[in-house]
């Protein structure tokens, strides 16, 4: 499975896992599971539209991902955040359905855009993917401190003058960028599993942010590598293995945390005597 035509998949998957692990840490911290699902799914609709117009699907992906991020950001100013996410998502999907109704040709491509395709990566795509990945990680590094503060204690961040809405928008845009670059191997629908399972497991293991981020990357790497290997061996889609492994790592993390809690349970406090 390490033949030259597979190397592209390994390399791209590694980049995807690193970005997924880093961005995913904040997805879990901020509770942004819904946007992390909605933005890639909406981006897929853009890819379908781009394919229809004959331009690069990466452009369609990026355009709709950004559109989704901006839509969610602007609508959540006036309404509930989860409602904004849901409506932005269905609007993009509806546009995608409209695009797709114009053609009947693209089914295999649709499938691999959604669920991932091991052999779907060409050598010429590696460099742009790596470039976008570096931009994503660099963006996280740049806004790291305000992002951490506004994720953990929003009120203190506001008091310190950090505009939480702008940070939220920046984060959504980083999420959109991460989405656009991860489709070739893992597929639009499963990148979000990578951004949820491994980081949640990592956070169950440690509460120190940088350590958790590193662990999250490691677990994501293991997940993607095992998924590629398994997919290569039995031909089942990568997406299936990613979803299953993400659930497993989440479950393992929860089990570990529960076990830790029983280990460190304090003994029952002595009965206090109250004076009447």
């Amino acid at each position: 499975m390490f033949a030259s035509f597979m190397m592209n998949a390994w390399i791209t998957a590694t980049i995807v896992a690193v970005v997924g692990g880093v961005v995913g840490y904040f997805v879990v911290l901020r509770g942004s599971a819904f946007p992390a699902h909605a933005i890639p799914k909406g981006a897929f609709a853009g890819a379908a539209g781009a394919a229809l117009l004959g331009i690069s699907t990466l452009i369609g992906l990026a355009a709709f991902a950004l559109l989704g991020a901006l839509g969610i950001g602007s609508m959540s100013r006036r309404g509930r955040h989860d409602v904004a996410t849901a409506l932005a998502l269905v609007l993009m999907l509806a546009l995608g359905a409209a695009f797709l109704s114009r053609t009947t040709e693209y089914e295999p491509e649709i499938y691999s855009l959604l669920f991932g395709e091991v052999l779907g990566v060409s050598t010429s795509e590696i460099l742009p993917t790596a470039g976008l990945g570096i931009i994503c990680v660099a963006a996280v590094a740049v806004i790291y401190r305000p992002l951490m503060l506004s994720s953990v204690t929003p009120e203190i961040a506001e008091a310190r003058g950090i505009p939480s809405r702008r940070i939220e928008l920046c984060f959504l845009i980083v999420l959109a960028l991460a989405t656009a670059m991860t489709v070739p191997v893992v597929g639009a629908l499963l990148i979000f599993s990578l951004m949820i399972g491994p980081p949640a497991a990592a956070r169950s293991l440690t509460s120190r942010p940088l350590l958790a981020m590193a662990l999250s990357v490691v677990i994501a790497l293991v997940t993607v590598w095992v998924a590629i290997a398994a997919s290569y061996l039995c031909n089942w889609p990568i997406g299936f293995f990613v979803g299953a492994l993400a659930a497993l790592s989440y479950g393992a993390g929860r089990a570990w945390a529960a076990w830790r809690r029983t280990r460190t349970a304090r003994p029952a406090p002595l009965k206090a005597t109250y004076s009447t």
Partner: protein
Amino acid sequence: MHQAWTAVFEPGFFASSQVHIAAAIGGVVAVVCAVTGVFTVMRGQSFAGHALGDVSAAGGSGALLIGLGPVAGFVGLGIAGAAVMDLIGVQRLRGRDLATGIVLGAAIGLSALFLYLTSATGATTGAVQQILFGSIFTTTSGTIPAVAVLGGISLASLALIGRPLLLSTISPDLAVARGVPVRLVGVLYMLSLAVSVGLSSLTTGAILSTALLIGPAAAALRLTARVGWALGLACMTGVLATWLGVLLAYDSYYWGSSHAGLPVSFFIVAVIFVTYLASGLRQARARVSNSVPALPAAAGQRDKLPA
């Protein structure tokens, strides 16, 4: 006069049996979704409502694979998914969305597998599109009994737990103090959500399932703080949006020279979206005139609190 009439209602609209079925099924589904949706938006469970649509679709693909009827697949896996979500979910909002996401990810993975296995056996083409997007125009009159039964079950169960559900949504602590079995009520809500969403995904497709669930309810809750009014407004909005969408989709076949038309889901979503944006105008105007009406207690503030 006649020309104006046919411009709006293209010839054959009222006679077409496809339109009748679409309007009937769409109307019922819109009502079920609107009622469920009001509670969903109030509880901040929009992600679960959307996720169960994808989980149901996975059930649909699985049913297709083993030759089981679609209803069993959609509703069956939907219920299982809702049960798992509730089981592993935690009470805090962020943890709950995470659990929802994990179940969703696993379900999507299963979807991928089922669709792959289906195509490997050389079954129907267009399965991906059908399951993902669905179409209200392709449902047959044979599903009307299932729609009626499932819709009835969902509405009945919501009516049953309505008041305790409302109390535990708005003020969980007060509900516990009053002796409401909050956890049980929560599970029952999730199950009826699963039935509603399974029903709507099956008949109208994944996109409309979420749109009809969230859109009208969210718009209604922005316009009124009273739950009864919100329920009524949401139902009305949902049904009107569905019928208008059906009309526009039917008309669109006559537009332009290509006579291709656009999918009905596109039009219904567009109408719902515009309605939601319009419902925000009232708040915007009120804000401008400096007399902000009190927002409903549960809407809009809960998810801004740190978990």
